C-alpha cells in the first residue's frame, strides 16, 4: 500500500506546479500580473539602500550618487543575449539626453568593460553587482530589466525584458516624467 502511495508523488508535485501556473495565468488575465511589470511592492517606493563599487573605478557608490533628474536603471550583463539586442536602443536614448544608470548584474567586470568599449556606453555610470545584492532587493527577475525612477528617487515603473521604442512610447512617456 505504501509503495502505491509513493507513485502519487509525481502527480502531487505536478499539481503544485500547475496550481502556481494557474495562479499566475489568472493574474495575467485579470491584469494583476504582467511579467514585464513590477510586483506592486516596490512601485512608488524609493530605490533600496545600496553600496556597490563602480564598474570602471571600483569606487564605492551609494544612493547619494544617483542623479537628481528622472533616470532609468538598466539591469544588464555581458552573458545576456537580450541585453545585446537592447543595447543599441539604450545608446539612442542616451544620445537624446536620457539619464541611464547601469546595474551590471552577476557579470565579470572585464567582460562588461569590453562590452561597453565595443558596443558603446550609454550609461552615466555602472554599478557592479557581482553577487546580485541590489538586484535581489529590487526583485530583479533576470536581465535585461529596467526601472524608471522619478527625479524624487521614487520608482515609477518596471519593465522586464527589452526596452525598445514601443515600450518607451506606450509605457514610459505616459508616466509624464521630464527627461
Amino acid at each position, binding site marked *: 500500500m505504501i*509503495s*502505491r502511495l509513493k*507513485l*502519487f508523488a*509525481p*502527480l502531487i508535485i*505536478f*499539481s503544485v*506546479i*500547475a496550481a*502556481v*501556473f*494557474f*495562479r*499566475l*495565468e*489568472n*493574474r*495575467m*488575465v485579470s491584469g494583476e*500580473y504582467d*511579467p*514585464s511589470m513590477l*510586483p506592486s*511592492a516596490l512601485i512608488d517606493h524609493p530605490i533600496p539602500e545600496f553600496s556597490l563599487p563602480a564598474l570602471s573605478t571600483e569606487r564605492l557608490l551609494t544612493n547619494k550618487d544617483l542623479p537628481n533628474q528622472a533616470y532609468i536603471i538598466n539591469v544588464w*550583463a555581458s*552573458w*545576456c*543575449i*537580450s541585453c*545585446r*539586442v537592447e543595447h*543599441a536602443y539604450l*545608446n539612442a536614448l542616451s544620445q537624446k539626453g536620457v539619464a541611464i544608470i547601469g546595474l551590471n*548584474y*552577476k557579470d565579470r567586470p572585464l567582460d562588461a568593460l*569590453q*562590452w561597453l*568599449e*565595443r*558596443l*558603446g556606453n550609454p550609461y552615466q555610470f555602472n554599478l557592479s553587482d557581482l553577487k*546580485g545584492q541590489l*538586484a*535581489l532587493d529590487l*526583485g*530583479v*527577475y*533576470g*536581465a535585461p530589466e529596467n526601472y524608471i525612477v522619478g527625479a524624487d528617487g521614487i520608482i515609477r515603473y518596471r519593465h*522586464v*525584458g*527589452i526596452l525598445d521604442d514601443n515600450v518607451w512610447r506606450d509605457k514610459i512617456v505616459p508616466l509624464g516624467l521630464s527627461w
Partner: protein
Amino acid sequence: MIPEIGHFSLLLCLPLALVMAVVPLIGVAAKNIVWMRFASTLAIMQWVLLFLSFLALSYSFFIDDFTVKLVTLHSNTALPWYFKLSAVWGNHEGSLLLWVFILASWTLAVGLASSSIPLVMKTRVLSVLAMISVGFLAFIIFTSNPFDRSLIMTPSEGNDLNPLLQDIGLIIHPPMLYIGYVGFSVAFAFAIAALLEGRFDAEWARWTRPWTNIAWAFLTVGIALGSWWAYYELGWGGWWFWDPVENASLMPWLAGAALVHSLSATEKRGVFKSWTILLALLAFSLSLLGTFLVRSGILVSVHAFASDPERGLFILAFLFIVVGGSLLLYALKAPIMKGGAVFALISRENLLLINNVLFAIALTVVLLGTLFPLVSTALDLGSYSVGAPYFNAMFAPLGLLTVFIMGFAPFIAWNRFTLLKQQSRQWILHLLLAIFLAMLLVSGLSHQYVADFNFLAFFIASLCLWLAVNTLSHFFFRIKHGGLSFHSLSQLSLSYYGMVIAHIGMAVMILGIGITSIYESQKDVRMAISDNVSINSYRYQLSEISSVTASNYDATRASVNVYHDSAGEPSRLITTLYPEKRFYRASRNMMTEAGIDASLSRDLYVSLGEQLEPGVWAVRVHVKPLVRCIWLGAILISLGAILATFDKRYKRSSAARSEPGLGSPSNH
C-alpha cells in the same frame, strides 16, 4: 481560395481526430476489430488533411498573399523564397500548425510501421495520439487561426520576418526541434497504452525504444542547431545562454536521455518498469511544458512568441488534463517496484540506475532554475532571479560525474559483475593512458594559446579521454575477439555500434565545452583600415570596409585577413573573413553576421561592431579552441541513437515471430 481550403482542411481535422480518439477505444472495449482497425485509416486521413492545410499556408507565404494576416505580419515581398517558406513557422500560429502536422506525421508512421504490434496496443497508442491532436487542433482553431484574412484593407507590403530568423540554421532548427518534442508523444502514448493494459514487459519496451531513440536524436540535433545558430548569428561567440526557452528544450532532452537508457534496462532485464513509464510520461509532459512556457507569455525571453494570456490559459488547461491525467493513471496503475535487489551492487542495472538518477538531478536543476522565479512571484515571496552562473555551477560537476561513470558502461555486464584482477589492471592502464593524453593535449593547448597549464582543463580532458579510451578499447576487444574481419564487424549489433558512437560523442562534446570555456580568448578593439590585432599567434588585420546590398538588407562588410605568426617564419595568410553588419530595410533592424573560419581544432571568429568614428570600427575577435567538438559531439550522439534503432531486433520480421496473442495482458 487557397487559404480557405487550408482552413477548411484544418477544421475538418478536429472532428476526425475526435472520432479517432474515441471510436477505436470503444472498439477495444467491445473487441470489435473493424473499429480498432479504423484508427489506422483515420491516421492517414488526418495526415492528408493537415498536409493540405500546411501546404496551403506555405503557398500563401510563397505568393505573398497579404490578404492573410499572418503573411502580412511575418513576411515581405523582398524575402528570398526559402525565407518566405521558413517564415511559415517563424511565428506562433504557423509554428503551431507545423506542430500538429508533425504530430500527424508521427501518428501516420506509427499506423503504418507497427504491423508487428498487437492490434489492441496499437489501437490504444493511436487513440492516445489522437487525443493529443484534438487538444492542439482545438488550440489552433479557437485561439490561433493561421488563416485569418484581412480582405478589406489589404496591405501591399508585409512587415518582414524577424531578421534574427532569416538564416539557414533557423530554417531547419524549429522543425528538428518539433520532430523531437512531438516524437516523445509516441513514447507517451505507448506508456499510456501500457498502463491501460497493465502490460510492461520486455516486448513493450522493444516496441517503444526505436520511436524514443529517433525522437531523442532529432531533439539532440534540434538543440545543437539552435546553439550553433546562436553562436554565429548573435555575434557574441556564445553557444549556450541558459535562456528559459533553451532550458525548456533541455528538460525533455534530459528526460529523453534517461528514458533511452531506462528502456534498455526494461527491455533486456525487465527492471525499472515504473521508472521507464514515468520517464516516458515526463519526456512528453516536459515538451508540453516547454510549449506552455514559450507561448503563454509567462516568461520573458528573446525566443518567446508574441503572447496572449488567453492562449496561456488554454495550454495550461490542456497541460493539466494531459499531464495530470496521465500521472493519475500512473499512480493508480503503474507496476509497484518489488523490494529486494535482484541484481548485484555492481551491475549494468545499477549503472543505468545511477544514470537515471544523474539525469533526474540535472532535470531538477534546470526545472528549479527555470520555475523558481515564477513560483516565488506567484506566492508573493518576492522575485528572485537565477542566471547562467547558477546553471554552470550545477552542471559542471554533474556532467563530469556522468562522463566518469559512462567510462565503465560497456564493461559492466547485466545482472552481476565480478571484478577480475585483470580487468582492474586494464582500467588503471586506461586511466593512465587518458591522463597521459590529457597532459599532452592540455600542454599543447597551453603552448599554442600562451596560457598557463590549466588543471581544471586537464581534469576535464582526462575524464573525457577516459570515457573515449574505455569505449574504444572495449570496441576493439570485441572485434579482436571475433577475428578482425568484415564478418566480425557485422556480428556486433547495431545497438552496440550506436552506444559506442553516442558515448564517444558525449566525450567529444564535454571535451569541447570544457576546453572552449577555459582556453577561448577574445579581444575587443578599435580598428581602422590596416590595423592589426593579435591573439596568441593569430594576427587579424582589417583590410577593407565595403558596402553590400542584398534584396532585403544593406550591409557593411569588413574584410579581415588572418595571419599565423610564428617566430622565425614569415607570417602566413590563413584566411580572409567577412563579418557583416546588416540593416534590414523593412523592419529597420540591425543585425551582425559573424565571420568564422571553422576547423576541428579551433574557430577564428570576427564580428563587426559599431562605427566609432569615420573609418574606425569596434571589432571583436575570438579564438575558440575545440568549439566545433560541441556540435560534432551532438551529431555523434544523435547518430548513435539513430543507428541503434536499425538494430535487427526492432525489425518487423523478428518481432513478429514472438508476437503473443491479441492483447494478452502479461503482468510481470
